[in-house]
């Protein structure tokens, strides 16, 4: 019984301590990693996605139409897959 209590306490103290130590190290390592990456391998500007298809599409019709197209397509795809 007493043993169970001490085991439980041990587990709580060391367990919680270890979780904090581990995540603290992770915060630190992640920070270092991010700093190194942004220093030595900075990301190019985040590209607006699908920039290649957009012009094409936009030349072909108004934006509203595209939304609609995509809605229909999504529905069709959904239907197809389910």
């Amino acid at each position, binding site marked *: 019984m007493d043993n169970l*209590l001490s085991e439980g306490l041990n*587990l709580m103290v*060391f367990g919680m301590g270890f*979780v904090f130590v*581990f995540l603290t190290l*992770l915060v630190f*390592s992640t920070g270092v990693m*991010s700093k190194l990456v942004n220093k030595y*391998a900075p990301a190019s500007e985040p590209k607006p996605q699908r920039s290649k298809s957009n012009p094409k599409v936009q030349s072909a019709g108004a934006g509203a139409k595209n939304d609609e197209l995509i809605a229909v397509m999504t529905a069709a795809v959904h239907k197809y897959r389910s």
Partner: protein
Amino acid sequence: MDKLLNLFTASGIYNISAGQALMIAIGLLLLFLAIRKNFEPLLLVPIGFGGILANIPEAGLALSAVENAVHFAKPEVLGMLAGALGVDSTDPQALLHAYKAASHTLHTAATDVALDAGYNNGMLYNFYLVAIASGAAPLIIFMGVGAMTDFGPLLANPKTLFLGAAAQFGIFATIMGAVALTMTGVMDFSIQDAAAIGIIGGADGPTAIYVASLLAPHLLGAIAVAAYSYMALVPLIQPPIMRLLTTEAERKIKMHQLRHVSKTEKILFPLVLLILVALLLPDAAPLLGMFCFGNLMRECGVVDRLSDTAQNALINIVTIFLGLSVGSKLSADKFLDLETLGILVLGVVAFGIGTACGVLMAKIMNKLAGGNAINPLIGSAGVSAVPMAARVSNKLGLEANPQNFLLMHAMGPNVAGVIGSAVAAGVMIKFVG
């Protein structure tokens, strides 16, 4: 006529026990909650259905060959089982007791006797062996979860990892709760049981199943049901605690927009995490290793077909069998027990404490950061329960200030909570496994 009688005496209606009827009702209740109330249906539909299957009288779907042999209790088979297990008595209860405590070799010997006598493992028992006893299913699901997780919000603000750490206090406090119940003589949990119950507070299904299967397989059914049910109940459990611990002014705090995180950072993060695990806590390597592997497949951009499969076909297949296997632990003789009640109570306490600690930690971090940088509402997301808990944070934020969108800010602690509970799982496996 003999055959007809035979058919009747072997039917469910002749043999059903009150416990089995009750468990079938509980299985139907789980299905109702999953289907009508949308309680984590991906897991609770298979678990509930598996629970019904496990309680079909005489079918023995959830029993091993030995348990089936004992159930039908032919004297000569019982005698041979007693010989194989090295016990004197041929009393069924004594045999089952010895079987549960048997070493691998004795277990094999008893199984050989049962198979020789023509008894077989039930279908669900086989699913359980392959999916859970092997450890495979929770790990594969964790890989899929990794492949679905975007660590962007966490990387934009890594300090939110502290929130994911604080919320794990629910786990360890619950262990003490289980210890207290045992010391006061109300229940009888070993330290392994207590640790497995505590992990409910991690609010992460696969982690809970993995830990329970290693530390306390006899409690697996109750622990899994509690974990998924309370995850579904997060929108009910958390808000009162969050309102109690925060002021209106704190809930109104708007947070800075998160910085853009580059692809390279996202690729390197799972590797950084993996190496930390390798250096500090090898016992968490299976869980976090598979999680990091899934995430690397997602982010590296060169194995999209593997990542797709990990997120779809593979995780779905495994979820079906994991759910049915967990359901196999809902058989009346294993589930209907005072311990289950204790687990359900301790589980909700764990959720509450985890939520509170997450919020309090966020308040402290906000104070340290000048009092207007971190909205304490995101702390509760540290329990994990992805993405439900983050949505709850967002909802309470919007209540306080209709322009206050906390969702992305809460995703950081939310995924941090997954890492945190996996680390806690590793520590517990190391210490009491």
